[in-house]
């Protein structure tokens, strides 16, 4: 059964002057939002203004109608140095742009409310923050609309530097983390630039179409170079191992709503670029043909395993974090692995799972980080060893976090379950059992660590200093609750989101998933979330019946009224078990944490340092004329020989 579409209201066509398209208007609106942030960012009402700006952008995006309609080309195009530069939107662009603007919308809302006061009191100006956020949205809208490799690279760089701005605005540790990010990102960008000019060398242009036409004639060797450079370059942003080290600190230290925005969508720009180049232009089929000599592994399997390891390592790193923000940020790296894995499987279910997870994860991560920052807003800390028992003080935040972690862990009835189920299902159907096991191991780590998250913050003993903590202000709760609702609805009725994903698959030329309102119906596996959730809640109902049928005996006590071994525990006795969480598990796997990636990073920097030291030695050599003479001798020898 095909679902018609997400019932979006049919919009009246805008009367547009000249050759302008709604797409140009979208870019103009994003630029105008940036300009407004620049001019009016100091104003007290800047937050609501920004929210309106993103709202207008959202409306204009719908106006383009590129999800279901024809791809739209922007009238804005340049001819620079003989290279044409253009932008176009299709369903893929629409999908990513929709998430981007949505993330900007909720982040701006969060930032414009009570959080702004806290940010000001820490000595920061909200204007720079709003500018950075608007610049991020604008640059991402440009990136996802890139119509050729040159605009792709320009968009890529703009996104990189906009992210740097957002990460660095807070200064201090955040700026150091941002510096580390920019080192990785720019090195990645240089790899991308190298790959793009190599493509130019083969095809003679930067156009997508020429490259797609040339793919069959490109040798496997050349393609391997492109895979290495492009997956390396784009993978930096996606956080593929071993290029992921920058991401968690950079995202976690970014000021609250910025962190939510980056966590939700920024890293996915790497995924977008990989999809454009390797799924749309090169094709998964070609990657399968690229065998590594003397092994039975193809390029696709290599990338699949990188994705799978990207799921496992960062997730188990997240398990050990003591800071709620870092914990979530490390998860962000791992979840990117699921998306890439699903897309690389390439079947209808797999790619749908990967793409759907982009959306599901974005709403989940935004909600989770907002909840954590709401806790920080009230208590001043996100340290998992300094919190506990806040359930009674911040119940709504607790619910938001609960819904978020269920979704993050990929459990029904929340959104994350659907996309992860699709990925698992496709791995089994594509006969990749080891990758399936790897992703399940990753999910296990996720479940363990999100339990640590909610336990250490909300369950257990309330600390004395948090006795007076109140619920977060409404301005923070509203976007959080909105996101939670979407998470739940997208879990129970995944049909609308799947309809977008199906359009994206059509635009990419992939097999299209056959979806229903409640899930998927295909020979590779079917699921109906409406039915499943119905059963789940029926189970809860039965449980409640049993409980209340037996009298429903319960006694309400004060949160600080606690006993151990018959002794009353006063509030200053710390019995909340938070530190060295999972001691038993760590006893088993703790030895595996060797810090290998850090060692790798340190090795690279030490190598650069050593090279730098040597060159400085050359430049400071005692004899001023030695190198001149040596160069003359060498050159003359070269000339004569």
């Amino acid at each position: 059964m095909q679902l018609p579409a997400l019932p979006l209201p049919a919009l009246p066509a805008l009367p547009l002057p000249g050759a302008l398209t709604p797409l140009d208007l979208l870019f103009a609106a994003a630029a105008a939002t940036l300009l407004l942030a620049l001019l009016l960012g100091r104003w007290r009402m800047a937050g609501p203004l920004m929210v309106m700006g993103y709202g207008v952008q959202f409306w204009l995006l719908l106006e383009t109608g590129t999800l279901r309609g024809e791809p739209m080309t922007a009238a804005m195009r340049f001819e620079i140095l003989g290279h044409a530069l253009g932008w176009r939107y299709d369903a893929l662009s629409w999908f990513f742009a929709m998430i981007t603007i949505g993330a900007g919308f909720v982040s701006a809302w969060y930032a414009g409310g009570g959080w702004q006061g806290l940010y000001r009191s820490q000595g920061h100006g909200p204007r720079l923050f709003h500018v950075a956020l608007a610049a991020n949205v604008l640059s991402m809208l440009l990136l996802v609309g890139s119509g050729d490799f040159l605009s792709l690279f320009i968009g890529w760089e703009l996104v990189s530097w906009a992210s740097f701005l957002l990460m660095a605005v807070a200064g201090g540790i955040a700026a150091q983390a941002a510096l580390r990010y920019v080192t990785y990102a720019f090195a990645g960008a240089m790899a991308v630039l190298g790959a793009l000019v190599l493509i130019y060398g083969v095809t003679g242009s930067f156009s997508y179409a020429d490259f797609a036409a040339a793919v069959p004639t490109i040798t496997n060797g050349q393609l391997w170079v492109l895979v290495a450079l492009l997956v390396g370059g784009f993978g930096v942003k996606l956080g593929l191992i071993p290029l992921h080290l920058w991401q968690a600190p950079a995202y976690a230290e970014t000021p609250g709503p910025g962190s939510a925005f980056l966590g939700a969508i920024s890293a996915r720009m790497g995924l977008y670029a990989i999809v454009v180049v390797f799924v749309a232009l090169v094709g998964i089929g070609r990657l399968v043909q690229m065998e590594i000599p003397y092994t039975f592994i193809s390029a696709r399997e290599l990338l699949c395993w990188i994705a799978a390891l990207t799921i496992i390592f960062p997730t188990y790193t997240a398990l050990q974090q003591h800071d709620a923000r870092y914990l979530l940020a490390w998860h962000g790296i791992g979840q990117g692995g699921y998306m890439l894995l699903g897309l690389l499987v390439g079947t209808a279910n797999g790619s749908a799972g990967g793409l759907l997870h982009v959306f599901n994860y974005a709403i989940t991560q935004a909600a989770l980080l907002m909840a954590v920052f709401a806790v920080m807003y009230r208590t001043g800390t996100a340290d998992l060893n300094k919190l506990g028992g806040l359930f009674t003080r911040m119940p709504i935040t607790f619910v938001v976090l609960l819904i978020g972690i269920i979704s993050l862990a990929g459990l029904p009835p929340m959104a994350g379950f659907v996309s992860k189920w699709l990925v698992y299902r496709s791995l089994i159907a594509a006969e990749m059992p080891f990758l399936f096991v790897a992703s399940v191991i990753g999910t296990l780590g996720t479940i363990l660590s999100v339990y640590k998250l909610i336990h250490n913050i909300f369950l257990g003993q309330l600390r004395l200093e948090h006795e007076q903590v109140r619920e977060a202000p409404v301005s923070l709760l509203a976007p959080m609750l909105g996101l939670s609702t979407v998470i739940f609805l997208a879990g129970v009725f995944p049909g609308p989101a799947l309809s977008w994903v199906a359009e994206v698959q059509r635009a990419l030329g992939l097999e299209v998933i056959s979806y229903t309102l409640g899930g998927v119906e295909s020979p590779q596996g079917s699921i109906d979330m409406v039915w499943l959730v119905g059963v789940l809640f029926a189970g809860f109902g039965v449980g409640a019946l049993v409980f209340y049928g037996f009298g429903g005996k319960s006694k309400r006590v004060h949160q600080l009224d606690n006993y151990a071994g018959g002794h009353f525990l006063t509030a200053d006795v710390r019995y909340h078990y938070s530190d060295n969480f999972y001691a038993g598990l760590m006893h088993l796997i703790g030895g595996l944490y060797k810090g290998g990636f850090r060692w790798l990073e340190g090795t690279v920097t030490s190598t650069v340092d050593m090279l730098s030291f040597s060159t400085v030695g050359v430049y400071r050599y005692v004899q001023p004329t030695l190198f001149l003479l040596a160069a003359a001798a060498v050159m003359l020898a070269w000339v004569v020989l």
Partner: protein
Amino acid sequence: MTGLFSISQGHSVLPVVLPLLAAFLMQPLGRVARPLALLLGPATLALSAYLLIRLWLAYGDAPYALAIGGFAPPLGITFYVDRLALLFATAVPVLTLLFWSRGEDDADPLRRDAVMLLLAAAATGLALSGDLFNIYVFYELVAVASFGLVTLRATGAAYIATVRYLLLSALGSVLALVGIAIVYLQTGTLSLAQLAMLAPDALQNPLGLAPFALLLIGFGVKAELFPVNTWVPEVYATAPTRISALLAGLVSKLAVIVVVRLLVLAFDGTGATQLMLALGALGFVTGELAAWRARDLNRMLAYSSIGQLGLVFVGFSLGGTAGMLAGLALVLHHLIIKSALFALATRWRGALARLTGAARSAPVSAGLVVLFALSLIGVPPLPGFWAKLLLVLGLVELSTPLALGALALVLLGSAVEANYLFRLVVRLYARPDDASTPALPKPKLLDFGVASAAGVLLLAATVSVVPVSGWLRGVADQAADRAAYIDTVFPTTLVQSGAR
């Protein structure tokens, strides 16, 4: 002087002659009327700049040649004036004026002014001259003037750095002289136009490439070519910062232009370009790597300048109009940015650690540093990106192993460059370790003005990248056109035989 009202091609000599004359008049005039003598330098330079701009407007379209003293080209000295020459000749008085020392470095301003004028005259001559030996003489004049200028602070370190620089430069000049002698032996002429005519027969052999190698090393000393650039960091760290700005921004570029003229006209072969490509790529990588460890601003800028000039050499080595365009874009880009960065460094020289939190007292200057850093590493859509794109595309089109290796080095070096430049940026915006450290002085108004103008220019070029690139292509087309050079200097192509 009628030149103020009507302009003729003959006036192209004046920007060389006038500052030279003023330099010699400086001391006598100082005895008579000191205030007048102090004004003489700026006035002369302003006049030179005015003349050159008038020339640009009047004759900018087609190149023309000027026989000095009426002696016909192969024997007499010619000035060859095309857009490239005019562009750099105009840059000389303008930049010299902008970095005119204003009495804070030296006890004897008249002597300093005279040397500055000498530098301006010789540098203009370098841009215009069309005769190899004449170029050598101007080059030596530039060298002597710069030796005088870099000792202006009169510290022991400045003297040591200068003498090391001097020895290196002098030995380089000796090698260049040997190169000139070999050229003369083989062709019997030193006029560039005639060399261009004879080159395909006389210089396309190993013994023809040898003088290019020697000239490259000789002129490479000023052009900060690897590995004859070891003087750069120590001199820029000890000289007055404005002089460093002039040397890094302007004088190095003029030496590059000389090398490029030689390459285009006389040594247009793969051997010569490969030499330049290899040395340029090595220069870029070593410069950026060395800058990575720099702990003081001047030396960081010096190493970065070495790196950028390596990039320039790589650009010009691509050959043809494309190479000329890439090289020119990089040259102009670096000229603007490095001059501006050194202008900001006049008050900020010294340890990088002292710059922590400088953005608080000088927010606009710090913002300009960010802008320049972004453009230097080539972030779109700033002009630096387009220049770098031209370069890498050219390297890919060459597609030789050497070119691809250079491509890899350029990309890796850029990553290193991004790291150290943004370490500086983050430091500028960091909070000082303790509040008691005195705030850094703001850049002086004029230096700040220079930097801001450069920033505005950069942004304007970003917005108008299409017309700017078109204009630059015109300049490059003209500069890469060997036949036009010959036709312009020898309109009737009567002189076919050499001097013998």
